[in-house]
């Protein structure tokens, strides 16, 4: 085995290790965090009123929050459009990517292919808008930290490398799929020798590792927001606070 092959094998090993590490960090980190939210008590009903009066109403409110961002629509129409397109593109891109790690590819994914192909082209527009907005608006710039820019740049870089792999510096799809299915079936094989694909893959790994520690937690955390996931029935039946502290009342009487 020559030196180049040895280095490549070493690199492939590291890449495979990174893939498993990032998958573990993402799944374990997100699960633990959401479980923490789940088990942290809600002492008082702080539902935003007027709110839904029954459980189906709450489900509808939460589904609306996750799918169409009604509060944001009231707040800022341009931001709403940018944010909604951003998330819609991410969803479509994610659905489309399932054809790389599902075998056989589900009908739905094939059906969506026609639309989701454009999501990749569209994505940079809302992403760059959000980035521009962070810098152009003094108020938003004031609250923006490094990670707020970092995440947008990371996602844009992932999208850019993804588009390159798909359209310009094309990777051989069979190799890509063999690599991904190898990882998923715990029988890893070497990745395709394709620098842009490898860059794309590493960036995704970084995103997965960072996800559970960052503001990206809004992806699951939104369902645990007490103002939005409670029924507006604070008066009846009695709501119980699991840690309702005893207080001494004897003084001053």
């Amino acid at each position, binding site marked *: 085995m020559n030196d180049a092959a040895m280095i490549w094998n070493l690199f492939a090993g590291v890449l495979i290790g990174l893939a498993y590490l990032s998958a573990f960090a993402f799944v374990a980190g997100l699960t633990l965090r959401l479980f923490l939210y789940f088990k942290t008590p809600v002492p008082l009903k702080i539902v935003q009123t007027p709110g839904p009066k029954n459980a189906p109403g709450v489900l509808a409110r939460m589904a609306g*929050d996750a799918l169409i961002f009604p509060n944001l629509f009231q707040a800022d129409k341009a931001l709403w459009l940018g944010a909604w397109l951003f998330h819609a593109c991410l969803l479509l891109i994610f659905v489309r990517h399932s054809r790389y790690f599902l075998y056989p590819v589900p009908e739905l994914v094939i059906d969506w292919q026609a639309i989701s192909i454009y999501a990749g082209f569209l994505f940079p527009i809302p992403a760059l808008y959000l980035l521009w907005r962070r810098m152009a608006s003094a108020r938003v710039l004031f*609250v923006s930290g490094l990670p707020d820019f970092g995440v947008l740049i990371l996602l844009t870089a992932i999208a850019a490398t993804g588009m390159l792999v798909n359209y310009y510096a094309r990777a051989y799809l069979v190799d890509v799929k063999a690599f991904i299915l190898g990882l998923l079936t715990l029988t890893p094989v070497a990745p395709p020798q394709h620098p842009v694909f490898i860059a794309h893959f590493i960036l995704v790994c970084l995103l997965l590792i960072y996800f559970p520690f960052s503001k990206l937690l809004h992806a699951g955390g939104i369902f645990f927001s007490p103002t939005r996931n409670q029924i507006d029935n604070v008066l009846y039946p009695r709501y119980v606070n699991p840690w309702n502290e005893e207080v001494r009342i004897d003084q001053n009487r």
Partner: protein
Amino acid sequence: MTKIANFPPATLEWKKTNRGLHIPVPEMDEHASAPLTCYPCKAKDMQAIALPTARVPQWETRAVEKLQELLHKYRGLQVYLDICAQCGACADKCQFYLGTGDPNNMPVARANLLRKVYRYYFKRMERFAGAEAEPFNEEVLREWYTYFYQCSECRRCSVFCPYGIDTAEITMAAREIMAAIGVATKYVTEVVAKVYERGNNLGIPGPAWIDNCQFLEEELKAETGKDIRMPVDEVGADVLLVMPSADNFANTDTMMAYGKLFYALGVSWTTSTYANEGGNFGLFLNYQNMKKVNRRILDAARELKVKRVIWGECGHAWRAAIYTNTLNGPMDFLDPPHPVHICQFTADLIQRGAFKIDKTANDDVLVTYHDPCNVARAGSLLEEPRAMIRATCNKFVEMPANTIREKTFCCGAGGGLLTDELMPIRMAGGKPRAEACRATGATYLATPCAICKAQLPEVMKHWNVGVKVGGVHDLLSKAMIL
């Protein structure tokens, strides 16, 4: 101080459009309201409300421990500190940012004052990624003490947040942490201490309360010729009415309206000199005191053997009242439904035709309605007060749609800010409400909240809006035929 007297900038133009009130957003002006802080608490008040009388030793560590404790107790706090995307949708929704231009009054920035401490101790990865993080120190404490007492906990920002992040939860947590290390404001602690000593926020002694009630009985006699009673401490009455103590002292028209209401219904009622306060400043301080203040009402109800407790026209009283069942319940020794707000009670009776009403009695005024933040956005009472106004007035006009109902602007003095040293903040924060009111041309602003009733007349005077501020029941009182 000249700068402070001038905010918000006079160049901003407020006008009514067909989409609502055009709300101009001021340019950012860093530290504009930084010099405006509340007077610090006094040791005797802190002692009376079971808080440290001075800064505790190792207060930095103690504060972080308290933060950790609260993170384990409040899901809202934990989730909201984590998930904010810093999108800034809330930035121009807070009346205190609109009024002062101080960026730390943007809800997201206000929350970040706590978030940066949270990140420093509990989010190492975010620190590593370069997010702003800072240890709890004197400088941070000063920022907290300033800006968490320039928030009225009105929750307007949460209505515009894609995740419903409630900055009030964060403000409350910060105040609870500060209280635990012996840092609080004179106004809030003094008021809670007065409740324990005298039974009410204003510190009216029992005998003076009775005196005032007798005086109001004489007033009612002179006005109506009837013997309308203002009972105090009457065991066995049907209803215990807990109104804001200001109704007994300042908003006497509202108090007399309660008297007429029960007289017309023939319902026996009473107030209590042990718990003659609906308002609960514990809500602005910590859980313990909120619970303790609230408990007095149920103790009084038991002692007076009443069948029902009805809360009077007060905003944060209602926000605390809806927690009564959770804090000190079960309330099953009372007749359901409970708790009850007087507007629910009255609106229901009006609908059932319990009163003879002459609407023309209110024809001399054009009425508009201010939704108190706590009644509308935390207490779900939107229709009842409006139903009352429609049933008692011919001339009713709503303020622009983006300033009412769940999008209502706070009067600018809720959350323990109704204190003189914050006057510039209060006037700046009241500006949106003043402009919305001006846009209607109304001559009477009805609102069921004692804080609003104390704050809004000053706001309207300051911004030259010619409108009288009063209760919702005052209108019923004028129109009711006895």
